[in-house]
C-alpha cells in the first residue's frame, strides 16, 4: 500500500511529466490559452493514460519481453520481441484512443462533446507514449502499480496545464515586451513553474 502511495505522489509531483521530462509540451503550449479547454484536455489525458499504461504493461509482460511468449508452449521460451516495442505500443495507443472515443460517444454524449476534439489528438501526445516507455524502463511489478503510475502522471499533467492556462489568462492584462509575448513568456513561465516543482524533489513516503 505504501509503495503504491509512493508511486502515486512521485508521479504527480516529483516526476511530473511536464516539469521534469517536458512530455506533452506541444499540446501543453497549444491548448493552454483558456482554463476550460485546458481542463478538458487534461481530463482526456488522464482517461487515456489510465487505460493505456496498464494495457501496455500486459502487452509487455505477455508478448514482448524475452521469454514472455512461454504461455504458447516451450518452444517459444527464447523468443524476444522487444525490438518491436515502439511499434506495438503506438499501435495500441492509437487503437485505444479510437476505442475510448467511441465508447465515450456512445455512453456519455455530454462528456464526448466537451472532450470531443481532444481525444483523437491524444494519440500523438508524447506524454502518453512517454508514460508507457517509462513504465517499461522502470519495471513496475504488477498491473496495479502501472495503473497507479498512469493515473498519477495524468493528474500531474492536468495540474501543469491548468496552472499555466490560469497564468496565461491573467497575463493578457500585463505589459510583456513585444518580442517575448505569447510563446517566449510561456516558456519562461514554465521554467519558473518547474523550479517551484523542484521543491518536491527527493520526497518519498
Amino acid at each position, binding site marked *: 500500500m505504501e509503495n503504491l502511495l509512493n508511486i502515486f505522489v512521485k508521479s504527480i509531483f516529483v516526476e511530473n511529466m511536464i516539469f521534469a521530462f517536458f512530455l506533452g509540451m506541444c499540446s501543453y503550449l497549444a491548448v493552454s490559452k483558456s482554463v476550460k479547454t485546458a481542463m478538458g484536455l487534461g481530463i482526456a489525458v488522464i482517461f487515456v493514460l489510465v487505460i493505456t499504461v496498464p494495457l501496455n504493461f500486459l502487452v509487455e509482460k505477455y508478448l514482448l519481453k524475452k521469454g514472455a511468449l512461454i504461455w504458447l508452449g516451450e518452444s517459444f521460451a527464447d523468443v524476444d520481441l522487444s525490438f518491436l516495442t*515502439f511499434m506495438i505500443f503506438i499501435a495500441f495507443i*492509437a487503437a485505444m484512443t479510437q476505442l475510448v472515443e467511441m465508447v465515450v460517444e456512445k455512453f456519455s454524449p455530454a462528456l464526448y462533446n466537451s472532450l470531443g476534439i481532444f481525444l483523437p489528438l491524444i*494519440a500523438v501526445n508524447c506524454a502518453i507514449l512517454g508514460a508507457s516507455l517509462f513504465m517499461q524502463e522502470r519495471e513496475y511489478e504488477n498491473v496495479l502499480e502501472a495503473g497507479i503510475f498512469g493515473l498519477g502522471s495524468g493528474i500531474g499533467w492536468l495540474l501543469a496545464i491548468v496552472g499555466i492556462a490560469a497564468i496565461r489568462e491573467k497575463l493578457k492584462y500585463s505589459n510583456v515586451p513585444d518580442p517575448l509575448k505569447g510563446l517566449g513568456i510561456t516558456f519562461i513561465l514554465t521554467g519558473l513553474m*518547474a523550479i517551484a516543482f523542484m521543491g518536491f524533489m527527493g520526497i518519498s513516503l
Partner: protein
Amino acid sequence: MSNQEKEPVFSAKNLKLLSEPLGRNNPITVQVLGICSALAVTVKLKPAIVMALSVMIVTGFSNLVIASLRKFIPDRIRIIVQLVVIATMVILVDQFLKAYVFDVSKQLSVFVGLIITNCIIMGRLEAFAMANKPWPSFLDGIGNGAGYGMILVIVAFFRELLGSGTLFGYPVLEKLGIYKTGYENNGMAILPPMALIIVGLIIWVQRSRDKSLIGK
C-alpha cells in the same frame, strides 16, 4: 507538374526548403512543434547532437517514404500509415544507436522512442510530404530536422558550458583559468527548468531581430 521535373536537383526553391527551417520557419521557435522530446536531452552536447542527427534522419526518410507512397495511401487511414512508417524508421535508428553508441543510447533512454510522437515529423508529413514530390519532401524533412537540431545544440552548448564548465567533456573553463577568478559552475543550468528558460530567451532574441514574427 511536368516542368517541375526538369528542375535542377538543387534549385533555388529546393535550397529554400533546406534553409527556411533554420531561420524564419524554425520548427521549435516559430512552428512550436517537437518540443516534447527536445529539451530533456540537452544537458550535454554529445547526446544532443546524436538526438539531432537521429531526428534529421527520421524526418528526412519518413518524408521521402510517405511522399513516394502518397498516391496510394487512402485518406482515411493516413495517420496510422504515417505512424507505422515513422515507427519503422525510429526502430532502425534505435537499433543502430544501441549497436554503435551504447552509452549515448542509455543516456537518451526513452527519448529515442519518443521521436515517434515528435510533432515535427507528423506535422511535416501532413503539411508537406502528402502534397509534394519525394525529392523536395526529403529536403524539407532534412531542413526541418536540422532546424530542430540547431536549437537543441544551442541549448546544449549553453547548458554544458555554464553547468559543467565543459564542451564535449573537455574542461574548457578550467583550461582558460576562469575558475581562478572566483567563478563557479552554475548548478541550475543542468536542471530541467533552465532548458525552458534558454529556449524562451532564444525566442526573444529571434523575435526582436525579426519583427514580422511577433504575435505568431
